[in-house]
């Protein structure tokens, strides 16, 4: 099962390595990771998505995260209400006759064509996991040449 964990941490060098080390030492892959400064520039916010086969081990990882000197708070969103978003950028095949079709899609999703050059358009879209998944299925019809994603951002509500 995938777990979404958020951390408030000191905004210092080495903090990310400490956190990543707790996952890698147990052979856990971090599925996605988003890090940025908060309103307080001395503090960073991390959203980590991790696949955990054993809940007990994940529980241990959370306790270990809490023990790190530079970690201020740990929140596991698994049993907590929260809002998530992800931003994607994609290069899709594009020809002028497709413009309407693409724009119709973006009536259903939060997204737009950022630019197009020749037969490729760069699009951006924002949504939760379900929306992004559905959008990508629709974009598949055009042919997606390249896709990058920020990874999940999660905030409590």
């Amino acid at each position, binding site marked *: 099962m995938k777990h979404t964990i958020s951390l408030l941490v000191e905004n210092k060098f080495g903090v990310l390595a400490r956190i990543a080390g707790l996952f890698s030492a147990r052979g856990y892959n971090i599925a996605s990771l988003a890090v940025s400064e908060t309103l307080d520039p001395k503090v960073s916010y991390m959203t980590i998505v991790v696949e955990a086969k054993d809940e007990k081990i994940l*529980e*241990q990882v959370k306790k270990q995260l*809490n*023990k790190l*000197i530079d970690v201020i708070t740990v929140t596991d969103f698994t049993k907590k209400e929260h809002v998530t978003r992800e931003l994607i950028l994609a290069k899709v095949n594009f020809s002028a006759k497709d413009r309407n079709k693409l724009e119709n899609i973006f009536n259903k999703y939060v997204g737009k064509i950022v630019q197009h050059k020749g037969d490729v358009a760069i699009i951006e879209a924002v949504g939760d996991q379900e929306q992004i998944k559905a959008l990508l299925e629709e974009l598949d019809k055009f042919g997606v040449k390249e896709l990058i994603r920020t990874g999940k951002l999660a905030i409590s509500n």
Partner: protein
Amino acid sequence: MKGSRILLESLKREGVEVMFGYPGGQVLPIFDSLYDSDIKFVLTRHEQGAAHAADGYARATGKAGVCLATSGPGATNLVTGIANAYMDSIPMVAITGQVKSFLIGNDAFQEADVTGITRPITKHNYLVKDIKDLARIIREAFYIASTGRPGPVLIDIPSDIQLMDAEFIWPQDVQIRSYNPNLFGHPGQIKKAAKLIAAAKKPIIYAGGGVITSGAHKELKMLAEKINAPLTWTLMGIGAFASTHELALGMLGMHGTAYANHAIMESDLIITVGARFDDRVTGRLDAFAPYAKIIHIDIDPSSISKNVNVHIPIVGDAKNILIELLKEIKKTPDTGDWLKTVEGWKKKYPLNYKDDGRLKPQFVIEQLYEATEGEAIITTEVGQNQMWAAQWYKYSAPRTFISSGGLGTMGFGLPAAIGAKVGCPERVVFDIAGDGSIQMNIQELMTCTANKINVKVAILNNGYLGMVRQWQELFYKKRYSQVGITSPDFVKLAESYGCLGILVTKKEEVRPALEKAINTDNTVLIDFRVEPEENVFPMVPAGQAINQFIGGLA
């Protein structure tokens, strides 16, 4: 003030009286400042020795031990010692030189990413990038190392920072917003624990190293006597409770006493104080103490329900919690029948060995106990020597048994003995060693001689890496693969290091040799040629329930 002087001034403010270490290129400024300092410096013969000595000093005194080494190989040689301190929650501050800040990452001479290497084996570590941070970092390092669940903290200081000038400002207090160890147990949990204790019929106390760290041994004794419960301890908990006390069951686990293991397996309540249910203690987890409810007192929340599910966790300092728990226990359980049962196991399965006239390692340790009247500080190496030292010497005070518990580091005992002796110069300090382990840090005999640190080494010389041989005998059909180990002539070796060497081959020579060692004002190494294939019993094979013993008389 120069960075190197800020460092030494800060160490003095932290009350550091002695450091163990080794100089090198990237710590030259520090050693130059040390030339004028009154902090005592013990020059070891290997940086690993320095780290273990700082660790031994910390275990014997309760104060943070300090070691110092240069960058690159100096720092990597500290790594085993740092990992050792980390596993056993020992307060230590390791200071390493680093290449000049502008060279970091350039594969400079003697460069290694030491904060990277030590990240998973330190409680915290620092790379000093700005001279203005140095004093604060040192203050924080000592605070982190010695509070909460203690552990090693490393400070990596580039050599250009050591030479930079800054105003020396000693921070009045430490402010780390994300680090606030929970010292007092939750009153509700303590009440619940007291109720559970009152209702128990077969309670047992299981004490670990946390009791010693917290200084809770008096309260532990009060608890055991108040509720009249038998008490067992881990390797790290040795000395937390007097071995000769009538409620004492000795160590539990893989090489624990049979009666301690039977008692914990049959108990209906385990009161755990500062122990962490290590796999060497629990044996097969799903078979561990099937009838017991568990109270777990520990300062580290991540120790709770890590291996064994706990019914009442109480997070905080053991001493504080025991004080409150003692107040809260109004009704004490009637343990008369239970103690009779336990007494039956004690009689039926005593700790024993076959005394057939040959020189037995267990006999050597019994004699050592008598010769030192139980007053020595014992350090150990790792393996059979360590288990016999744990089983056969009767410890009665905390900080008198110093052993590598979690990491199991061969080569720990001699440098740890040096640290212990430096910390407690009035005490007799014995390293109980094996012929394999002692050769891992034998060079530290020179440290003893050069610094007039008078320690005693008792080598239980059986010509084998005995514990591995024992496993090969029992579980690998006696196919002895690379466990026969040869040694130099230890007596001559001791002499060439400036120590006294004594060879003992017969039982009757044991006591005189020990007396001679104790009464010699020099480091003494005794080469006891013990029974080669003696095993450590009782033994619970790995993966078995801890009442499933093999071999021996137990």
